[in-house]
């Protein structure tokens, strides 16, 4: 038993393992970079880096073929920790190495955390417009809105992943259950009048009876976006209310009345609401004279805190984001006179700064130790 433990420890501590893992990580990154052409950056992160194994399709079966980012990163972390505990000896000559590797541990952990918890959204604002929410660039939700009271909406939002899994949703706020019937991760729609050969629709009420849905392969391209669609049945205590087609392609919410209340049904980009709101006061955009190369763009935004406190104005532009209430707003792009801000929540954003500072410091110390030693030897 002791012998096995010693061997396992020797393996985990060994530099050979480090070299082996570094080589694996190079292969993984290289492969993933090539795969980006087809899968896009999000697909690659999902399949290569935020995964324990990378699978490839062999004859229709998903077979694990290579360790993923979590596996390699985790082993490197174990290797590093074991090295710190058993191998590294404290002493002046090794200070740099020690600090650098401690920083590396923090970097790996920080990336793990941000991979797990980082969320990004977008916020599109026309000049003069005020919004208190940002929208996801990739995820959608089915919003069931109780619009009886004209003063406010009472919203139950169902992530589209639940629709994709066919999970039946029952909420105490809703007098009916939401039963997903069919889900397409990407789709196109056209009017039935223009698609005479289309199969009959699953929808029995609403817009869905008038349009035909064509399922499409999911896209991973950076400039394209998946447009999901779903058929959902709303089932009341006394039987079905009907089956609706929901999709962001339909635009406006579909309205109906049930149990004495007015409801709206819409599939839209997943929203994250804030207690405060932002107003776009002015969007500016310059190009270099005589060209259409963008020179700069910036958004003058007013922050309206909750409770009617006086707000303040900020200027968001390239390399100068707004960090407010745990979110960061970046100038991402624009569309005519509307600004598009990237909104990111990443609680571990500070970790890489500290980690990289430590690693750099460690490497510089070590480099200087070597350089001084080298210079002394040459002089001798």
């Amino acid at each position, binding site marked *: 038993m002791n012998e096995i433990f010693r061997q396992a420890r020797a393996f985990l501590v*060994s*530099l*050979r393992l*480090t*070299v082996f893992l*570094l*080589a694996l*990580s*190079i292969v993984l*990154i*290289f492969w*993933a*970079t*090539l795969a*980006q*052409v087809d899968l*896009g*950056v999000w697909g*690659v*992160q999902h399949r290569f*880096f935020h995964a324990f194994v990378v699978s490839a399709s062999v004859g229709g079966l998903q077979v694990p073929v290579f360790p993923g980012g979590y596996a390699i990163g985790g082993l490197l972390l174990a290797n590093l920790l074991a090295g710190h505990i058993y191998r590294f000896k404290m002493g002046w000559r090794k200070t740099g190495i020690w600090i650098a590797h401690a920083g590396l541990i923090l970097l790996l952990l920080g*990336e793990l955390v*941000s991979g797990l918890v*980082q969320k*990004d959204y977008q916020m599109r604002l026309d000049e003069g417009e005020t919004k208190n929410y940002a929208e996801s660039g990739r995820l959608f939700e089915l919003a069931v809105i109780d619009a009886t009271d004209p003063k406010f909406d009472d919203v139950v939002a169902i992530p589209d992943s639940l629709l994709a899994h066919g999970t039946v949703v029952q909420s105490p706020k809703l007098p009916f259950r939401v039963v997903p019937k069919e889900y397409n991760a990407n789709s196109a729609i056209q009017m039935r009048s223009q698609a005479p050969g289309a199969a009959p629709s699953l929808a029995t009420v609403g817009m869905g009876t008038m349009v035909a849905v064509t399922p499409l392969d999911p896209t991973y391209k*950076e400039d394209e976006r998946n447009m999901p669609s779903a058929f959902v049945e709303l089932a009341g205590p006394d039987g079905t209310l009907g089956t609706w087609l929901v999709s962001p392609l339909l635009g406006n919410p579909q309205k109906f009345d049930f149990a004495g209340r007015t409801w709206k049904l819409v599939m839209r980009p997943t929203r994250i609401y804030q207690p405060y709101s932002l107003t776009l006061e002015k969007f500016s955009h310059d*190009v*270099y*004279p*005589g*060209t259409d*190369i*963008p*020179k*700069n*763009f910036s958004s003058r935004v007013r922050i309206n805190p909750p409770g009617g406190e006086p707000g303040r104005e900020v200027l968001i532009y*390239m*390399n*100068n*984001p707004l960090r407010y209430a745990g979110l*960061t707003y*970046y100038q*991402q792009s624009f569309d005519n006179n509307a600004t598009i801000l*990237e*909104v*990111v929540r*990443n609680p571990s*954003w500070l970790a*890489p*700064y500290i980690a*990289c500072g430590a*690693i*750099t410091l460690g*490497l*510089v110390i*070590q*480099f200087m130790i*070597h350089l001084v030693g*080298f210079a002394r030897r*040459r002089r001798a």
Partner: protein
Amino acid sequence: MTRRLPFLVAAAAAFCFLLGITPGWVHQPAAVTAFGRLPVLSEGRFKPLDSVARSTLLVIKGSQTIVLPGKEPTVLTPDQWLLDVMFAPEKADAYKVFYIDDPDLIALVGKSEANLSIHYHSFNEIAPHIAEIEAQEKLAEPVGAQARNHFQSSVVQLYGNLSHYLRLRRAVVPDGSKDFLGELIHLQENLVEGVDAVRAKEEGKPHDEAKAAALMEEGQKFVGMSESTDLLAIPPDEGDDPNAWHNAGHALLETFGKGEVNPAVFAYAGMAYAWRGNQTESFEHILGLYQASLAKHFPRQVEKARIETVFNAAQPFYAGMWMYLGAFLFAALSWIRWPEPARLSAVGLVGVGWVVTTVGIATRMWLEGRPPVTNLYSSALFIGWGSVALCLVLEVIYKNAIGTAAAGMIGFATLIIAHHLAMAGDTLEMMRAVLDSNFWLGTHVVVVATGYASTYLSGALAIIYILRGIFTRTLDKATADSLARMVYGIVCFATLFSFVGTVLGGIWADQSWGRFWGWDPKENGALIIVIWNALILHARWAGMVRQRGLMCLAVFGNIVTSWSYFGTNMLGVGLHSYGFTQAAFWWLTAFVASQLAIIALANLPLDKWRSFRPGPA
């Protein structure tokens, strides 16, 4: 003699370079040079017409000079070519300046089977086929740049070149105008009556119909002119925004409001008249007057344009390229014969080459007002410059010509790459908004480029070790050990710089896009270089490799770096995807193959290495 050789070599190199700057050396009349110095606003920045001419020729023809056939072939300078394009288009249209290498496209412009190897074509030859070219371009254009086949990218390129040429041809003189100066004088003389006639016509009062119609026709022509060029050659009036230069058509449209023809347009039309009529004296006279008025109102632009013209003529990077090549040959020579004189000559050449390229890079920075690296072209310059600087340090320490040989090799290679990258157009192009941050360009990009430079340097040193060891008897134990120490030291340096540079990139990304790391191809490439360098160091510490293994890993570092540097751009995805060329792909493949061959060679048994083979010394 041999003791003086190094000084002679260095002095000769410096002399050749300085000759390029002296005005008398350029084979063109002083007035043509002066014309080339006129500042214009083009592609978002002020530059001399000389730069417009050179970058256009590089884009459409692939070289900066034109040789006119004849009994005694004459050479046209870029400035002379531009003068003909702008002022005597019927001459310029006959110059064979459009480079086409796709056989299908050559056939499309009307060449028969036997002539498909003719690569240079004149506008006159192509003009009858423009409609077909346009149709093909419309078909090819929607295909993404990466997915186009050779014919498609060639036709898109040719179409772009043709419109580039036409925009230049129509910059100040409208198409088909034989005597533009006369037309303008006529306009000026009849302006008051013409404007009155048009006004009266609009108000429905009696008027001189012929005069009104003539003026309206002029106006239509100017509208056409203002839409058909992007060269902003006409300075704004005094008191207006000094950056608001316009094109000639736009300036002429203001004639009707201001009551007089813009004097700068007049000057250009006058120059056109004199140039067409071969009236050298009046050309010089008009040019002199225009220059004087520009110098009075726009002294800064005029001075910058003058310096840029000198910089263009000096071609410091082209000169440096040959100096580095010479240095490499001298350094290699020093291992076989005349060790000290040849080595010092090599050091001298590298020194002069490095000073020349330093001045070149500094001039670019001053012209742009930016840190050294702003695009792929300048990164090649900077990587070469940084490597050579490191090599000079190695040479000062070890004095065994290895640093110099590596300097020659890398300096030459990077400058030849830069030379080809310049074919893409103006290398002092403006920065897109997202990259517009001197602080991050100055830190992240410069440090990453230094990391690339040192990784290449360790690879170059390793190649010297392997080739010298296998093919010569000159790699004795002391040299081998010192090379191993150099490679190890440079790999440490490369690890530090590539890591810090990559991290700074992450911080920039966090500042501008909200994520520290996004797995963008270029980021991945940089990360792979860091990991590769770390792998070399750990493999050595673990005792998994010794001298020879270290060298093989360092050579493989060349492949890793080249892939990150160029290969990632070829994928055509991500934030950093710029500057792709198809030819570059084949060069990259060939380079990778050559490096693999060197690694394979290094794995020959040691008794096959001439340096290590026991036997007669």
